[in-house]
């Protein structure tokens, strides 16, 4: 019975966890400018993330150790510095974007400028991390995150043309604006596959004391959960294609994205959009801050757990306290949340090789996984992912210059 509870929870977590500021913004831009055409990128991102989460979850359930822990131990500190710095920098940028997303949601609800909300949001987030334990953070954000289902409702109300959407799930070349198309493709991939997601997931498996018994829970969570979550991102793209594209609106402000739900669902849609933006970005804020503190603590061997009182893991709790306030500063000083989001999604995509490629080594290490090492299909998929991540690394910056803005 408990297993089923965990299963349901896992699926809910992934649904709530998938959609956040990055996915909402990039899907909306993609739909507004290219209709359904970029749907295949969301499918690719969803499948890749599901695979990475299944593997890091399996690694944690079998070895009872987190991905960051094994990265340091198996590759040594000299190598570990690279993913540490890369993931740290991009996660900090994504964290700023998420705080920006929450602040924009509050601005839309209250009329008070988003800059005033950044510090209160950080303090509220800090308070929850300080007092709450891991399940409160995980389950609370997951349950509330279900409000994101309103994107699916919005898409259905607008009656999408299913055959066209079906065809868009296969890659195709754009008829115009090549640079912009590929730029958005990279940004969507960066938004779907964020390293903080699988670092958080593998640390969560250890926090929840997963064992080999949880391998089936892990498979279903990573698989079904991400497919639902990715489905919601596709729904956001579909609504943008049906609401923004025909009116020739290019997304330049978050307020425009509210039209995605306000057009099909009216005033309720507007409120649902604000709620979705607030809840998913706030949930992601908590998860990213924790993922960054986990990365530091596990990499350096400090005491860490969101289930311990802060006095028991002082360096860990100092890390999340400082980080959440630090990330709120640029927003408080008026940084534009939407441009910040776009840049951080592209940089996230560029950072993927350093966390994807080492996984190929770890997932084939019999000392760690014994009989649960990767089979050839998983390895093949991981090699493809690794190659894709290298392409993203090379292409990200040129595309930012050519197609960004």
């Amino acid at each position: 019975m408990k297993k089923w509870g965990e299963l349901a929870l896992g699926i809910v977590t992934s649904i709530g966890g998938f959609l956040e500021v990055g996915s909402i913004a990039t899907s909306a831009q993609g739909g507004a400018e290219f209709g359904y055409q970029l749907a295949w990128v969301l499918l690719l991102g969803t499948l890749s993330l599901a695979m990475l989460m299944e593997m890091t979850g399996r690694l944690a359930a079998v070895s009872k150790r987190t991905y960051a822990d094994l990265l340091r131990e198996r590759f040594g500190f000299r190598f570990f510095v690279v993913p540490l710095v890369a993931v740290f920098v991009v996660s900090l940028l994504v964290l700023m974007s998420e705080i920006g997303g929450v602040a924009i949601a509050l601005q839309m609800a209250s009329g008070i400028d988003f800059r005033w909300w950044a510090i209160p949001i950080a303090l509220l987030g800090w308070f929850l991390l300080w007092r709450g334990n891991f399940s409160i953070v995980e389950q609370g954000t997951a349950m509330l995150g279900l409000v994101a289902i309103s994107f699916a409702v919005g898409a259905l109300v607008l009656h999408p043309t299913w055959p066209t959407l079906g065809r868009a799930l296969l890659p195709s070349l754009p008829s115009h604006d090549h640079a912009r198309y590929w730029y958005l493709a990279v940004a969507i991939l960066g938004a779907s596959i964020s390293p903080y997601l699988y670092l958080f997931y593998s640390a969560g498996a250890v926090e929840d004391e997963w064992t080999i018994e949880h391998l089936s829970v892990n498979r279903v969570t990573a698989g079904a959960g991400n497919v639902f979550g990715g489905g919601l991102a596709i729904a956001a793209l579909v609504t943008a294609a049906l609401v923004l594209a025909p009116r020739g609106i290019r997304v330049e402000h978050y307020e425009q994205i509210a039209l995605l739900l306000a057009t099909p669902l009216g005033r309720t849609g507007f409120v649902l959009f604000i709620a979705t933006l607030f809840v998913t970005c706030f949930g992601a804020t908590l998860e990213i801050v924790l993922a960054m503190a986990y990365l530091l603590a596990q990499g350096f061997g400090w005491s860490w757990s969101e289930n311990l009182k802060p006095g028991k893991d002082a360096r860990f709790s100092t890390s999340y306290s400082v980080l959440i306030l630090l990330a709120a500063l640029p927003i408080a000083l008026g940084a534009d949340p939407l441009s910040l989001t776009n840049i951080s999604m592209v940089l996230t995509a560029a950072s993927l090789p350093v966390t994807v490629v080492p996984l190929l080594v770890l997932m084939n290490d019999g000392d760690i996984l014994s009989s649960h090492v990767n089979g050839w299909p998983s390895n093949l998929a991981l090699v493809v992912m690794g190659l894709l991540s290298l392409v993203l690394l090379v292409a990200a910056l040129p595309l930012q210059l050519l197609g960004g803005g």
Partner: protein
Amino acid sequence: MGALRLFHDVIDAQLVDRHQEKIGRVDELLLELEEGKPPRVATIVIGGAARARRVGRWMVACHRAVHALFGQHEEHESRVQFEAVRCIADTIELDVEADALDSMHLEQWLATHIICRIPGASGERK
């Protein structure tokens, strides 16, 4: 265990004290060289400077800069004799007290001066 692979099983491994509290990782492993005797694995080093030396000169410079920024002149490093090793498995257990280690300076300083002054920090589990 018959043989121990130092590079694989010891370097960078998670260290815990005798109460299973996490106390850092094996940042450096020293051999003892004594005239007329074969070299012997002697010391586990835990500390930022040792870690930085493994990466390269630029990391040592970064490490110094961070120390200078916070007005720290002392290097808080622990050197534990290999004889203190009690168990080598997923973690390496050392027969030491976390509180007695110099490398735990920052953890202790943060705990007493900052974290525990904020309400809700004390106790065991949330």
